[in-house]
C-alpha cells in the first residue's frame, strides 16, 4: 500500500536519510527503530507528507503521495504525534470528533454514523469516562489516548505512530500497543519505537536506521542482533529468545563501574544457558572472566561473546576434545577462582569436571540447585555427582544464587581496586 522508492530526505543542507526503500501494507505492524537523530521521525513525516523527499518517490496505493488532495490524504493516513499541545479548552468529545473532519469537510454536518464511530474509538482507547472533560485538564497519558482516538476516528488505512506510548505508564503502554497490534490486522500500522523490546514483541517487521541509511530490515529476530545493536546504538546487549513468544528479548549489558574494577581472573564452567546471567553479573562486578568449555550453539557462548569474554569452544553437539581440555587446564591454573554453574552433565562434558578435580584449584564455587528442583541432571551414572561431593568436601563453597556466587568470587580474588 505504501511504497517508498530510493527516497532521500534532507533537512536544509544536512542529509537525514539516503536511499530508503521499503513497502508495507494492510495486516502489517512495521516498526522503525534506531538511535536518536537517525531520522525515524523524519521518515514518518515524509510518509505523512509534512516533509518532501529531495529524491525518490513515495507511492500510496500506486499513486504519488504528492497527488493527493489534503482531505483525501487524511482519509488514508492518520498520525499520532509524539506529543500534542491542546491549546484551548476543548472537551475530549470535541477533539475526537475533529477526527471526522476528513469525512465531513468544511460545510457538511455530523451524521449519526460520525457520532457512532467516535463512540466506538473512545471505547477502544478507553476514554469513555473522560468525554466531557477538558483536554487541558487531563493527564498526559489520557491526552495521548484522546489523540489516538482522534486518529482512529479518521478511519485511516495507514496509521503512523511516533513513539505513541512515550507518555504512558507500563500498563497503558501494553494496552495501547496491543490495540495497535489488533488494528494492524485490518490496516497498515507503522510506528517509531525507542523501546526495542516493545518493537520486537509487537511488530511484524522492523527497520533499523543508522548512519542515514537502513542498516537492517526484516523480522525482529533477524534485525535485532548483538552486532546490529552494537553498530547502531554503540552498546553491548544480550539477546535471548522469549520462550513463550519466540520474539527476541534484549537486555543491555551494564558496564562495570570504575571503582569496582578488580584484578584477578574468574573462570566459569557453564553451558545450556545456565551461565549467561552469572557472566553478566561477574562482568558488571569488574571481574576478568573466562568461560568454557562451551559449544558454539550454546546461548552461554553468545552471551560470553557479547560481553567480550574469552571462551574455550567446541563445535556443536560434540564431546570435549583433549585440545580444549588442555586449554581448560591452562585457564584453570590462571584463575583465582572457578565457578561451576548448574547444568546437565553427560559423557560429552564430564571432561570439564574431571579436569577441575585434578587441577587443584584454590577456590571452587558451586552454584547449587534450588531446593525442590528434582529433575535429573546427572547423566554420567553418578560420576558427576560424586565429583561435586568430593569438591565440596575438599573446601568448595556452595552458594544458592548468582548474586552470592559473584560475591563469593569477589571475596576470593579480593575487592581491591585495580592498581594498574
Amino acid at each position: 500500500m505504501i511504497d517508498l522508492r530510493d527516497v532521500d530526505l534532507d533537512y536544509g543542507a544536512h542529509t537525514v536519510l539516503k536511499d530508503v526503500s521499503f513497502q508495507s501494507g494492510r495486516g502489517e505492524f512495521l516498526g522503525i527503530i534506531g538511535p536518536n537523530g537517525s531520522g525515524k521521525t523524519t521518515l514518518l513525516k515524509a510518509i505523512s507528507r509534512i516533509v518532501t523527499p529531495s529524491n525518490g518517490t513515495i507511492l500510496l496505493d500506486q499513486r504519488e503521495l504528492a497527488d493527493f488532495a489534503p482531505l483525501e490524504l487524511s482519509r488514508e493516513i492518520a498520525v499520532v504525534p509524539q506529543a500534542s499541545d491542546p491549546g484551548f479548552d476543548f472537551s475530549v468529545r470535541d477533539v475526537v470528533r475533529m477526527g471526522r473532519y476528513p469525512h465531513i469537510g468544511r460545510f457538511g454536518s455530523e451524521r449519526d454514523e460520525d457520532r457512532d464511530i467516535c463512540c466506538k474509538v473512545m471505547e477502544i482507547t478507553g476514554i469513555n469516562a473522560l468525554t466531557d472533560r477538558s483536554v487541558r485538564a487531563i493527564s498526559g497519558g489520557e491526552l495521548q489516548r484522546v489523540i489516538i482516538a482522534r486518529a482512529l476516528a479518521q478511519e485511516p488505512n495507514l496509521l503512523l505512530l511516533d513513539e505513541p506510548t512515550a507518555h504512558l505508564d507500563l500498563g497503558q503502554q501494553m494496552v495501547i500497543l496491543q490495540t495497535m497490534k489488533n488494528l494492524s490486522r485490518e490496516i497498515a500500522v507503522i510506528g517509531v519505537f525507542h523501546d526495542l523490546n516493545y518493537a520486537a514483541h509487537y511488530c511484524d517487521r522492523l527497520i533499523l536506521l543508522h548512519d542515514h541509511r537502513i542498516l537492517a530490515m526484516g523480522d525482529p529476530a533477524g534485525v535485532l542482533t548483538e552486532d546490529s545493536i552494537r553498530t547502531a546504538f554503540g552498546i553491548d546487549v544480550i539477546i535471548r529468545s522469549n520462550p513463550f513468544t519466540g520474539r527476541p528479548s534484549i537486555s543491555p549489558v551494564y558496564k562495570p563501574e570504575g571503582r569496582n574494577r578488580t584484578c584477578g581472573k574468574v573462570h566459569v564452567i557453564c553451558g545450556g544457558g545456565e551461565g549467561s546471567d552469572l557472566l553478566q553479573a561477574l562482568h558488571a562486578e569488574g571481574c576478568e572472566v573466562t568461560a568454557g568449555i562451551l559449544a558454539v550453539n550454546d546461548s552461554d557462548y553468545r552471551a560470553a561473546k557479547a560481553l567480550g569474554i574469552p571462551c574455550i569452544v567446541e563445535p556443536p553437539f560434540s564431546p570435549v576434545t583433549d585440545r580444549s581440555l588442555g586449554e581448560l587446564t591452562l585457564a584453570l591454573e590462571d584463575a583465582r577462582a572457578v565457578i561451576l554453574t548448574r547444568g546437565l552433565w553427560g559423557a560429552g562434558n564430564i571432561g570439564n569436571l574431571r579436569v577441575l578435580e585434578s587441577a587443584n584449584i584454590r577456590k571452587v564455587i558451586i552454584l547449587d540447585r534450588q531446593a525442590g528442583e528434582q529433575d535429573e541432571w546427572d547423566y554420567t551414572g553418578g560420576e558427576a555427582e560424586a565429583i561435586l561431593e568430593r569438591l565440596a568436601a575438599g573446601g568448595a563453597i556452595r552458594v544458592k544464587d548468582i548474586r552470592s556466587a559473584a560475591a563469593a568470587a569477589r571475596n576470593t580474588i579480593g575487592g581491591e581496586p585495580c592498581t594498574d
Partner: protein
Amino acid sequence: MQKREYILFLLLLAAVVSILVCTVIGPAGIPFLGLAEDESASIILFSVRLPRVIAAMLVGFGLAAAGVVMQGLFRNSMADPYLLGTSSGGALGAAVAIVFLGGAFHWVLAFVGCFAATFLVYGISRRGGRIPVEQLLLTGIAVSMFLSAILSFLMYTAGKSLHQIFLWLMGGFWNISWNDVWIGLFIVPASLALLLFSRELNIFSLGEEDALHLGVDIEFLKKGLLLASSFITGIAVAIAGSIGFIGLITPHLMRLVVGPDHRILIPASMMAGGILLVLSDTLARTAGNEVPVGVVTAFFGAPFFIFLLKRRYME
C-alpha cells in the same frame, strides 16, 4: 447545543436593546413624546446619535471577530487584531492624510495602510509558499515598530496637525455620519465569511501539524483568515481609529461563556464586542467633555485583562 443557541439569542437581544437605549442617552435630553414636533431633537437622534451607535456596534463586531481569528490562528489568547502591523499601518496612513492632504481621504488611507501593512508582513514571512506562524508574529512586531517610527517622525514634524493625529490615534466616533455606517456594513459579511472557516479553526488550534494530518488545507486557511480579518480590521480602523482591548478581551470573555468552539465563539464574540463598544462609547460621550473611546476601553480593559491573566495563572 440548545444552551449555546439560547446564549446567542440573549446576546442578540442585548445588542438590540443597547442600540436603542444608548441612542436615547446623551447630554442633550430628548423628549420622547414630543419627538415628531422637535426638529433639532430629531436631528440629534437620527443624524448624530443613531449612526454613531450603529457604527460602534459594527466596529465592535469586526474587532471581536478579527480578535477571535487571530487568537485561534496564533493559538494564543493574548493575540489581537492589531498583531500584524494593522494598527500602525492604519495610523500611518491616516497621519499621512492629515499632514499632507489636510485630512482629506484619511479613512481611505487608513484602510490602505492597514491592508498594506498586513500584506507586507505576510510577504516577508512567506517561505516557499508556506507562512510559518511564529515567523508571521515576529515579522508583525518588527513591521509595527518600523511603521511606528515613521509615524513618530511625522508627528514630530507635524506642527499644528499634531493634535488631530493624536485624536485619531486614540480612536473615537465623534465625527460619524451615515456614510461611515454604510462602509461599516461591509464588516458583517466579512465576519460571516470567517464563520465558514470555524471548523478548520477549531482543528487548527490543536497545532499546525495536527491540522495538516486531519486534512486541513492550512496555507489556504491562513491566507483566507488573514485576508478577511485584515479587511475587517482595516475598515474598523478607518472608521474609528485603533481602539484597543475590544479585540483582545471580548474573545477571552466569550471563551469563558460559550467555550472554545469557533462556530459559536465567533458570533457570540461579535455580539459581545459590539455591545461593549457601544456601552464604552456612550460612556465616553456622556462622561465629561467627549473622552476618546480608546481611553475608556483601555481604562476598563487593561485591569480586566490583568485579572484574566492572573486567573489563568492561578489555574
